[in-house]
């Protein structure tokens, strides 16, 4: 049962939750070197019950990140490698006629897991992509007229190669909006890369990783996140940001209400990761770039501004109310 956040609700046991998240981040940081900020954003995204899009070149550790999170959080993990000849049934599952019983038996596809790594999602055709994206939004799949609920929690990490590569079908904007955050991993810095090269194989480390969360504990963390207090002043700030994107001539489209809801949820998660029972504008600013990067397209004099730079522009353009 989902906790209903009310005006009276306050986060109980915040220090314990904060300690848990810190342990998770520390453990993940030992495997994925030099990417602490991205790890924190990924965790915030998950606590805010959102899906994550990682966009970067092959081989920078996108898959490892998904793996690490799944193991540390004790989630059931499935990886779906998207290819151009993929069909929705390959994701959702198929009904097969069984001779012995004379009935159709549903064979669930790889999507029936708690944490899905949708690898190279932009390699598949829009048809296959939409099967995944609908499941992300509804948290249930419909196949042959029967609706089946997906496991709880349900969290998708999709990776996408830069769309200028050959043989890709870039996700349309409407689909992108369903990812709460988009992050880039980037190349490791010098020190991290040296440690990576000198150290043990990441996959070996991964295998020895113990889960840090019990069953239900992730849910408790998520409930605690939604109980973090967002004051009227803070909500005003979120509104001011959205308002700016909607009226500024620099952007073709503004932030959708789904985006502002996501922004607030992610800011709450960030506050929890900081161990604070209330959201500050700083929390909003910390998660903002990840949330707006795949939703806004800067034009005009800002033309070509992408990713974190875009987020930074937005933050600096909107004064605190």
């Amino acid at each position, binding site marked *: 049962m989902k906790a209903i956040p009310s005006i009276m609700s306050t986060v109980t046991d915040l220090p314990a939750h904060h300690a848990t998240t810190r342990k998770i981040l520390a453990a993940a940081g030992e495997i994925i070197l030099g990417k602490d900020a991205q790890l924190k954003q990924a965790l915030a995204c998950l606590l805010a019950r959102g899906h994550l899009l990682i966009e970067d070149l092959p081989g920078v550790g996108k898959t490892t990140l998904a793996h690490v999170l799944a193991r540390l959080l004790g989630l059931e993990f499935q990886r779906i490698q998207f290819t151009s000849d993929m069909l929705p049934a390959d994701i959702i599952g198929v009904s097969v006629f069984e001779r012995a019983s004379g009935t159709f038996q549903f064979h669930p596809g790889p999507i029936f897991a708690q944490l899905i790594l949708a690898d190279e999602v932009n390699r598949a055709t829009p048809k296959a992509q939409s099967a995944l994206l609908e499941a992300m939004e509804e948290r249930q799949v419909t196949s042959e007229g029967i609706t089946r609920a997906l496991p709880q929690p349900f969290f998708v990490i999709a990776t996408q190669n830069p769309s200028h590569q050959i043989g890709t079908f870039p996700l349309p904007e409407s689909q992108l909006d369903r990812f709460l955050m988009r992050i880039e991993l980037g190349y490791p810095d010098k020190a991290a890369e040296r440690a990576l090269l000198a150290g043990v194989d990441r996959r070996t480390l991964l295998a020895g990783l113990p889960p840090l969360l019990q069953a239900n504990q992730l849910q408790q963390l998520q409930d605690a996140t939604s109980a973090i207090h967002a004051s*009227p002043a*803070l909500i005003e700030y979120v509104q001011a940001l959205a308002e700016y994107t909607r009226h500024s001539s620099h952007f073709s489209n503004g932030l959708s209400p789904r985006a502002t809801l996501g922004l607030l949820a992610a800011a709450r998660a960030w506050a929890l990761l900081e161990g604070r029972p209330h959201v*500050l504008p700083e929390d909003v*600013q910390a998660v903002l770039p990840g949330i707006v990067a795949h939703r806004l397209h800067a034009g005009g004099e800002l033309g070509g501004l992408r990713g974190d730079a875009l987020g930074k522009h937005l933050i600096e353009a909107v*004064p*605190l109310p």
Partner: protein
Amino acid sequence: MFKRLLNSLLKRWRRKPAVQAPALTLAQSWWLFAAASAALLPLVEHIPLWLSLTAATGMAWRAWLIWRAGRLPPRWLLFVFVVAACVAVAIQYRGLFGRNPGLALLVIFMALKLLELRSVRDGITVILLACFLLLSGFFFNQSIAAALMAGAALIVVIAALLSLQAGPLPTPRQQLQHSALLLAQALPFMLVLFVLFPRVQGPLWGLPQDAFGASSGLSESMAPGSISQVVQSDAIAFRVRFKGTPPPPQQLYWRALTLNDYDGINWRYRATPERTDLPYSAEGRSIEYEVTLEPHNQRWLFALETPGQLPPDSSFSSDQLILANTPVRTRLRYEMVSYPDFRPDAEESPRRLREALRLPDGVNPRTRAVAEGWRQQYRSDAEILQAAMTFFQQRILAYTLSPPLMRDNAVDAFLFEHKRGFCEHFASAFTFALRAAGVPARVVGGYQGGEINPVDGYFTVRQFDAHVWVEAWIQGRGWVRVDPTADSAPRRIDGGLRTAVTGEEAELPLLARENYAWLREVRYRLDAVANAWNQSVLGFGPQRQRDMLSKLGMPEPDWKQMTAWLASLCGVLLLGFTLFALRQRVRTDEVTRLWQTFLRRLARRKLDLPGWMGPDTLANHAAAQLPQHAKAIRAIAASYVALRYEHSPSTEQLAAFKAHIDRFKP
């Protein structure tokens, strides 16, 4: 069939509730225990000792269980207790219905309910029961002290309710303060409801069958010694407020009843025909006053001679008594006007005059002989009356509180042997003598005198002011008041009882004694307070309510108008409280204004602090650029964060924020 029903009932009884109700915490249990104790304690004086002890045992058991975290007794045992208690109460009171057995059962149930207190829901039951018990205390006592005590107990009960609903506060003191604050907020509503809620006629608390069952005071018969018993009490009989200067004490003969039938020992009241209007219309000098009568469970109302009007719901008897239509069982207030110089037409039915001459045969032969001598010596009744008065003066009779016992031929014994007596001896002997002489006469009972309370100007007439005197029928003049006591003990009439009986103070009620002036002073004050309470709170009936509302500009208040006023006043109060509560909340615009002041002061130092910075970021930047003010800047930013972004900031934080900014002068 029956067995199945029984089984299903048993099953239901044993079955645990499907959803476990929230269990009580330790602190909540203690609070409920305190609430039950507070509700039971004032009742101890109204219930039998065994009941108090039983309840105390149950309470102590529960306290021990809370303390040792022990297991509650099983349900069947409690069931046995309930049955046993009901039987015991039924035996004690010979039944289970009525005020006293009902209260006894509630007391038992309260103690037993504590023993099955498991969940918050049970706790609510205890609270409701406690409230009911608190109210039931008013069946017995409605004094200010009782009200204050109930109020104090209510604070404890509400504190317990708060601990159930909002969770216990850290200290009992805070809990009680919280509760008292809530109740204080209810006070204005209480006042509005008190004034405007439509009143019904009759007692608020009295139960018909046993209200004021035993009242002291005058009774319908008088035997030697009965009045001297009445005067042992200093209880208040009635209070009077005169409009204008009170008449002198010699005129304060409060007539109540006549005693006509004499059997040799007792004088008895005999009912006479009644009418609902006065047979005369009085004129002359008038005395206006208002009487507040304590309930005496009799019909007669007190008035000075000669009453010029009848109070509502009363009638006038042919022996000039004012009788209420029903016995006075609640405090009664009525307006009266008397015409002291007016005498109604001197006519009396022959039958009544015959009755006023009737005497038993063979008693008091010596007095009879003397009286028959007057009859032969004098021609007119007036002369005989004069002779009788002279005779009584010459006997030199002593007025005393402790006359010797006179049983047979009491009048003879009083007049010729002991020569000592109290007012009933005087009146009885005088009436006997007049009747023996052929003059129609009757004994009149009532109160004489009274005492003015200098604190509030009320005239208080107490039981020890009870008095009897004589009325004689004189042709052409009507019934004439004669007080034989006045001749022997004139100070009784002028100065009250305490001046009349010197050397016998020890036998007088405390308040009637002369030499405890300071005590009387204290009593005057307490009495004035109690009277104010009686007049304005307990005596606030439909009539008073109408008077008050018409003074407030509602000339003809009906219940619709009153309800409308009630609702609108409560609405206004509610609005007021809401506005007050809203003002108590931190005003965000003020927070922003102060923050802007802070930012302006920083801007004067030409710092690079863009508007998009969050308060923490901004504080860090500013502190880095102004290291000497770093501490103040961080403190201000922390207060600002608390006020603007935290959950329910307090007004104290705002004050601290303001103080920080006032002090911040970079």
